């Protein structure tokens, strides 16, 4: 039967008002000190910075899902790949690592990729009985050759000063350069993944990408030579000054005093403001480009493909190519966000890349914000991130409220002791409430 889904008319004022509310939340966080808000600009800006990065991630997911209906559940993998870039591009070279086996690793990787390419060709070109054996032969030979080249080189690199380094090292270039490189890493991986998996439908694509995300993270955890694996890589250079340098700079200290701020406080705020400027600029540029594309025939074509692939195909649109295109671009944006995030953290910790946090939370952001709408996705991202962080405080606070009337005793102690877990309940409730009152997202697609 015809679907009676109705496009509720959404007021044009909705988006601006919601953004104003968001600004108000951050201002409250920065300036009021009470049970709900911390009254610290440092905190507010710290949340904002990660919120902006989340918005970039959400934008990437929104491109894939909102524009083209591709269910990418491997966000965390592309994010991690992007995060690899700052380590490989901007950290200082490791003494002796390259000599230990750099060229050989590169050669091995080339052999590995070559094997895959050859296998693909064999599969495409050959037919008949020999096809499968030939494929297997190519793969096995390639794998053996690859391991033969790869293993000793990796051992040598990892043995090189393994407590402090053990990795191949970076190029020592400016860290900002690693952002586009991160995007490239993720995009390249997405190209390969897309070639293979994009034929799958909705949830099947989701689980395939989920798997790929897990695989990428597993590789980053276990391949120590790449970025020290689970041993974490810290001390990634920054594109902005260090707080301690600022605190040691008399000019800055004087300027801070003018504002009536202590040097530590002022330096924290200033550095975060600089980051916010960088991230905000990237975010706005991306939104601008995305909006231009979406409001043109290209966007119309993507929506058509999302609505009905068979018909779009019959109307001359190369659905496979378009899917690949948007998948690569979306993943590139996610990779960019990954590089930005690692730059902000100054740390690459592959163990922290878990799907709940970096895949599903991002999805929540997109859906709550309004999939298909760039502003919506960005809004959702910043808002959800704000709540995710504030739930840490609001959950226990709520618990204190609830347990107030309960008499002293074991039950009350138990409940108060479990207060941290209210974080989940609070977050879940907020999520459900938002979905309830704006089921198509806060700023839905027009």
């Amino acid at each position, binding site marked *: *039967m*015809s679907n*009676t889904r*109705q496009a509720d008319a959404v007021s044009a004022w909705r988006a601006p008002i919601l953004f104003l509310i968001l600004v108000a939340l951050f201002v409250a966080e920065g300036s009021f000190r009470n049970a709900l808000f911390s009254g610290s600009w440092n905190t507010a800006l710290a949340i904002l910075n990660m919120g902006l990065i989340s918005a970039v991630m959400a934008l990437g997911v929104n491109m894939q899902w909102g524009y083209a209906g591709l269910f990418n559940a491997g966000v965390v993998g592309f994010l991690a790949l992007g995060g690899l870039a700052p380590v490989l591009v901007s950290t200082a070279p490791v003494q002796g690592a390259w000599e230990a086996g750099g060229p050989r690793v590169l050669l091995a990787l080339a052999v590995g990729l070559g094997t895959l390419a050859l296998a693909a060709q064999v599969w495409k070109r050959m037919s008949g009985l020999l096809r499968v054996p030939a494929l297997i032969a190519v793969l096995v030979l390639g794998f053996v050759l690859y391991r033969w080249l790869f293993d000793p080189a990796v051992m040598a690199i990892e043995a090189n000063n393994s407590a402090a380094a053990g990795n191949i090292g970076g190029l020592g270039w400016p860290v900002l350069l690693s952002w586009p490189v991160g995007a490239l890493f993720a995009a390249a991986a997405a190209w390969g993944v897309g070639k293979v998996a994009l034929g799958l439908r909705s949830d099947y694509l989701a689980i395939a990408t989920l798997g790929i995300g897990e695989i990428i993270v597993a590789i980053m955890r276990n391949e120590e030579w790449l970025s020290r694996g689970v041993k974490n890589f810290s001390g990634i250079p920054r594109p902005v000054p260090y707080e301690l340098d600022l605190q040691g700079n008399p000019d800055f200290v004087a300027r801070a005093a003018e504002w009536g701020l202590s040097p530590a406080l002022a330096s924290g705020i200033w550095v975060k403001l600089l980051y916010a400027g960088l991230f905000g600029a990237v975010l706005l540029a991306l939104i601008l480009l995305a909006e231009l594309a979406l409001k043109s025939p290209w966007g119309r074509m993507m929506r058509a493909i999302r609505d009905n692939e068979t018909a779009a195909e019959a109307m001359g649109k190369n659905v496979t190519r378009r899917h690949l295109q948007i998948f690569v671009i979306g993943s590139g944006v996610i990779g960019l966000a990954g590089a930005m995030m690692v730059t902000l953290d100054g740390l690459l910790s592959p163990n922290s890349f878990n799907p709940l946090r970096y895949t599903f939370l991002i999805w929540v952001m997109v859906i709550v914000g309004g999939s298909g709408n760039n502003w919506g996705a960005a809004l959702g991202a910043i808002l959800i991130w704000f709540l995710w962080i504030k739930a840490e405080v609001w959950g226990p606070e709520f618990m204190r409220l609830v347990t107030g009337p309960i008499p002293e005793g074991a039950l009350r102690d138990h409940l108060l002791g479990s207060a941290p877990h209210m974080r989940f309940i609070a977050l879940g409730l907020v999520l459900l409430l938002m979905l309830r009152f704006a089921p198509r997202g806060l700023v839905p697609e027009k």
Partner: protein
Amino acid sequence: MAEPYLSATAMRGGYGKADILNNCTLTVDGGQIAVIVGPNGAGKSTAMKAVFGMLNLREGKVTLAGEDITHLTPQERVRKGMGFVPQTHNIFPTMTVEENLEMGAYIREDDFRDTMAQVYDLFPAVADKRKQYAGELSGGQRQQVAVGRALMTKPSLLMLDEPTAGVSPIVMDELFDRIIEVARTGISILMVEQNARQALEIADIGYVLVQGANRYTDTGQALLADPEVRRTFLGG
């Protein structure tokens, strides 16, 4: 005059803000065949849905056998003896043909194998495919399954939204034949048709709907004979 078996009077309503139905009235007597015709988008399907309670009416009243059913849910109406074949999405695609028919007989407690045999008799083309998923059938075959499903209900009022769309002439004739036969057993039929000439021929009463309102109402023969109706609605 006794009240008609089904009477839907002065219906007004639609999907969103704008009304699709404007004071539309449809009545069918017991054992009668009523046919609704009209241009595309006139609100024929909407009127059917309204009669079946799948649309909120702003105004109007629906009675069945004298009982006011305006506020009943569709599944309650099914239990009151109404059967409906929608225009689109009228089969269960991942169930087999046989299961589709069984679902038609869902509310029946008695043995329905007879009815099923009759349906297969009527549509031999789908009888061959009883173990196949309905979603794999051709357009016309689906339509036959859809009508078959409604027949399985043994309704006292059968509502058909373009039952013959996409079926071959021979099956269409069979179908109309069967509809006449069904009507003779005292079952009322309300159907929308674009194969209007054939349909009006067998109709006891015909409605021409334009923009959600009754334009002409008369016996089928009279409508067929009206040159104005023929020209503007029946394709000459």
